[in-house]
């Protein structure tokens, strides 16, 4: 089965892959530091962070853009994945912490005598990697099962997911929850035996993030073409018709919710080693709404929109927080309002929107009869 819609999309995908997988890491590894073409390790992990954000946005788009579920706990799944991988990284610090103890520093600080039982398996890299997927997946399964079973949908679903994020965030802020309280995890030393701050490690992490993004893109493209994907989009457009046609929409929604949580968790796992810190601040409801902004700005329900949105907003954030630290939130808020009001299809849909306006403008004097319907789906 073909994954890509058009030859143009395939070319674009291959070109992007070539730039991100060969050119940028190559410029980092083989071009001398003095050269203007050199990509520094800092830049690599910065862009690596944007790539993981893009994956997070894609996972939300899967829910919101293609299934019509506005989920406000996506950043919680992202952080859960990050925490699961962070536990492995914390244990790999070993006795190099500030207290020279085999226990993570915050545990020594809080007076733990030995490692809590649920931490022990995280010495194993593969267990931690598995946990990155199943912990968010399980959380999504439990909550989704309860929510979809009682047919909570639309804005009620959003409100409840927001409350869930709020509750879990409060939980992670507690010191006695064994996940480091409000300081979270930081000061990592090594990953799979390699120094986590070495440029070569950062290069591999960047390549890994890009591979994850590519795989997610291909997976979503493929899924949209399967019968499953068609049902999924039908649920977005009219859930009741799908239900009356004999499909159990509850099961479809639950599966997509769990899948989306797992993708977000994987993104979180790549985020943590590149940024070097994870704390409960990453899982607030406000962060989840940020992700919604990225998707809305880039283009909801488009394959490429979330990537553009995530990178654009975060690039803008990097510059604006430095240049206009006071008014950055005002800028972001205004973008949000304007996008919702005037750009229902986001940046990706902008050319089409402009073309539509131009056509309308040209035809208006002629007849005035044919109105081009402007789509405004909820």
């Amino acid at each position, binding site marked *: 089965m073909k994954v890509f819609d058009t030859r143009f999309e395939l070319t674009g995908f291959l070109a992007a892959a070539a730039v991100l997988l060969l050119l940028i890491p190559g410029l980092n590894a083989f071009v001398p530091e003095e050269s203007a073409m050199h990509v520094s390790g800092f830049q690599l992990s910065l862009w690596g962070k944007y790539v993981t954000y893009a994956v997070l946005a894609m996972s939300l788009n899967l829910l919101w853009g293609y299934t019509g579920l506005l989920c406000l706990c996506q950043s919680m799944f992202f952080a859960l994945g990050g925490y699961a991988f962070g536990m492995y990284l914390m244990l790999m610090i070993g006795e190099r912490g500030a207290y020279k103890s085999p226990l993570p520093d915050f545990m020594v600080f809080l007076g733990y005598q030995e490692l809590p039982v649920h931490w022990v398996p995280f010495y194993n890299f593969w267990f931690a990697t598995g946990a990155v997927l199943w912990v968010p997946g399980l959380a999504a399964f439990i*909550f989704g099962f*309860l929510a979809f079973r*009682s047919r909570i949908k639309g*804005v009620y679903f959003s409100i409840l997911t927001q*409350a869930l994020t709020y509750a879990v965030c409060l939980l992670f802020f507690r010191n006695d929850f064994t996940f480091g309280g409000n300081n979270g995890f930081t000061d990592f030393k090594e990953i799979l035996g390699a120094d986590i701050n070495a440029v070569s490690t950062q290069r591999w992490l960047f390549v890994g993030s890009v591979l994850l993004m590519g795989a997610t893109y291909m997976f979503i493209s493929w899924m949209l073409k399967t019968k499953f994907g068609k049902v999924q989009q039908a649920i977005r457009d009219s859930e*009741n018709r799908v239900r009356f046609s004999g499909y159990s929409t509850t099961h479809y929604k639950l599966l997509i919710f769990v899948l989306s949580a797992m993708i977000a968790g994987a993104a979180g796992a790549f985020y943590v080693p590149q940024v070097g810190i994870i704390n409960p601040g990453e899982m607030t409801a406000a962060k989840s709404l940020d992700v919604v902004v990225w998707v809305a700005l880039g283009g909801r329900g488009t394959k490429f929109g979330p990537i553009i949105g995530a990178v654009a907003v975060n690039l803008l954030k990097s510059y604006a927080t430095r240049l206009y630290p006071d008014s*950055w*939130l005002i800028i972001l808020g205004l*973008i949000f309002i304007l996008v919702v009001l005037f750009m229902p299809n986001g940046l990706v849909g902008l050319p089409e929107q402009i073309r539509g306006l131009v056509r309308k403008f040209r035809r208006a004097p002629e007849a005035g009869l044919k109105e081009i319907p402007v789509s405004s789906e909820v």
Partner: protein
Amino acid sequence: MPFTLLAESRPTREILQDLVLAKSSQTQGLLDELSQTGDSFVKEFVDSWRTGEVYLWESGEEKMVLHRVSEAYHRVSTNELVALDMDEIAGLSKARPSRQLRKELKKITDTIDLVSPVESVRIDAARKLGLSGKVEYLPVLEQRFEVEDSKKVRRAIEEVLLVHRLKNSEDPVESLETVKRLGQIRSFLGKESVEDALQRALADDNDELVLACKLSLRSINNRQTLVEQLGNLFRGLSLGSVLLMVSFGLAITFGLMGIINMAHGEFIAIGGYTCYIVQNLFASWFGAQSAAYQWFFIVSLPVSFLVAGVIGLGFEKTFIRFLYRRPLESLLATWGLSMVLQQVYRLVFGAANVQVYTPDFLMGSFEVGGASLSYTRLFVIGFALLIVVATWLLLTKTKLGLYIRAVMQNRQMAASLGIPVSRVNSMTFAFGCGLASLAGAVLSQIGNVGPSMGQAYIVDSFMVVVAGSVGNLLGAGISAMGIGVVDQFLQPTLGPVMGKITVFAVIILFLQWKPGGLFPTKSRSLED
């Protein structure tokens, strides 16, 4: 009766003047007279007397006693200001009480609160004297017990006397009586001494006393639990009242227009900041010490309603009206608005919390069976009731209310019958914002006022609206009170965080049972 005694006796100031002038043989009668006054001025005066702020002045035949207060001389007997020139001041002689007199005066000033005309002052004085453990106060307390006729004060005196007796008692029979009596009056103060007595009784193998101690402790503990529960209920009701005020606005705007207002929390903050501004205006117009200043809070209530209403109306006219019946998009756009508003507050008022003072008439608390209910919280509950009644009247007794209900039930039908739907929408949105702001104004008395003060309540309020069926005011009211009370009952055992999480879990499970909330709207439409 202390009040009649006061009325018959001479003014305190005259007694004090006589005391200063009296010879040592005449003092006793005056001291007795003084100890019955219960006037708090006595303390102030005796302090001045000891520290040398009291002077004797002989002008002609008349001997006068002067009291120096912040560089001015007052005549003690009448409290009138006496103007003196430099020579006259030089001619003044300091009056000092004798050693013996000082001792006597100390006893009076220590116990004078016990005869104060204010009941709560007498109770506090009895507790302070009784628990100081000094034997010399016991006769005073006993005397007072005989003449006291306020039940509460008598109880307080009896309680401290019993505690004192139990602590020092060697006689098992007397101990037994005391323990029994402490249990009878359910004395919280006596709990500790009864526990000590229990230890001693266990050591002495005095079975009868052990049993009595255990019984008394049980009845004291029962009462204590009751008082704690009462306190929890009270705090729960006041939290519920706040949630109710906040969620009424949400419920109305959502039910009517399908707008999920994420910026509702920022309208709460408008109320808080309006209080702050009005308070500062009052302070600069009338001065912070004046009586008029106390009215700032009352004035800021309607002002905050109007300010938020006008601002809400502005937002409704500019962009919210484009989002009707598109709940998800309204949620996103109002979230953007909330970000902008929060940052604006930070830029204008600073990131730190601002201080809103409590007016004097809301200071203090009210005691019910040992539980103290603060006036601010009582005010919150009363005010929420007022808002419920006002909203109900608005919805059922006015033309606007009729329109609002019509639009809520069937928008198109209402429009086709000539109801000005868009104007009704504007007014309702403004009303909802005004309610949020009123809640914020009230919150300034029991919480912090800061840029993100609304965020603390907004998640809870959304839960209230969902659990109580969206658009249903009765449901919102019941679920607000329920959530508030459950939250406060869970907090002492589980802590604030786990309490909140449990409440959240309970709501999720409740929605399994009743997916549409408490009072779901009955409709034949599939999509509702």
